[in-house]
């Protein structure tokens, strides 16, 4: 049964949403999802860019009023 971990990285300047995602991917199991909340519009670009390079799966990018939900599934 896959689990979903949420990283609330709103207002996180350092190390920032993508670094937090990279660190959290090391802790979860294959098939698990990570939901990154980010107030930095750059995350909607740099997270999918990196996920594509390492071939995990982009599940969803949703823009809310003041932040983004970016959901990634660990594939390998």
């Amino acid at each position, binding site marked *: 049964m896959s689990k979903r971990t949420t990283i609330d990285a709103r207002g996180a300047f*350092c190390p920032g949403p*993508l670094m937090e995602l*990279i660190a959290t991917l090391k802790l979860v199991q294959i098939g698990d999802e990570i939901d990154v909340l980010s107030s930095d519009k750059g995350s909607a670009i*740099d997270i999918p860019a*990196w996920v594509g390079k390492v071939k995990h799966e982009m599940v969803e990018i949703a823009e809310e009023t003041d932040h983004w939900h970016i959901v990634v599934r660990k594939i390998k």
Partner: protein
Amino acid sequence: MTEKILIVGGGLAGTIIANGLCRQLGKELRANEVNITVIGNNEQHMYQPGLLYVPFGRIREKDLFRDQRSVLDRRVIFNVDPATKIDIASKSVVTESGAIFEYDYLVLATGSRLRPDTIPGMEEGAHWFYDLAGARKMREALESFDGGKIVVNVNAPHKCPVAPLEVTFMLRDYLKGRGLADKTEITYTYPIGRLHALEPVANWTQPEFDKAGIKYETFFNTKSIDAEKKVILSEEDSSIEYDLLVTIPPHNGSQVISDSNLGAGGWVPTERETLLHEGTSNVFVCGDTTNIPISKAGSTAHFEADTIVDNLSSLVTEGRMARKYDGKVFCFVETGMNQGTYVWFNYVTPPNPGAPSQMVHWFKLAYNRLYWLSARGLL
């Protein structure tokens, strides 16, 4: 009835909290209404940022250490007896000697540790300066280095976000000083798509690297290291040859946190403003140990600790919390052997570093000594 405050961890966070509580709860301590215990791993307190200078022979090792008993207020009960199991349900901590410490309030300040063992080949093939043994080994390697390719490789997560840039700039100056700059190529790798997590720092760094001829590769997360062939491979299917590899290994939280099922990877789920362990009202978490998406830095630990001191004191004396942590972080950035800058931010204020200057560098050198006042809760 004496209220027991137990602090697990004798690093900067635990030490500032213990000393700060003594300062605020003097009356209660005298009346035996409260006691404060620190359990730590080591009799010595190490100034970790000083490790940056060890590979370059720029600091005396003895200046990194003070006797922890002398740094702590004399009213703190201090035991060098590492915690092995933390049981929130029974409000107790078991230690290596088999002692059981019960508490009314708990502070988890157990820090973070290097995990080079989690990347194949890293222990065999790489150098690091994030602990004393590694820093000494790197010093020896640098002393016998006479030119070639150096790779500075950064892995997530790690503490001290600016140290990778600092060591790169210091390497450049060190090699110039030894007349090896023309015979050496430095390549810096970073996990995300720019040279540093902080965008202003990354934007400042790139032209500096270009000016200095330092190469770089971003979106590089280490997959493995071939120590024989001297090649480092990334998850992004890239590879770089090296003659000397300096790595910032990935980190985890402490073993005792994982063993106690308090957080995946040893990072304790922590509310970002109250600094309470999620779901508790009497367990605070401070420093690297938290899972808060914030820099794992000494200054973070310091500002968090100040907040916890105020809140714990207020809980003991008035039964309520005093204030929230605002996310403040302040980091010096050494940009070479004689220049530096600093960067600060909080949850709502973005970072905006100034131009490097000799004065800020000298202030950083001064802080290498003034740190002990911070640990004692005086600065």
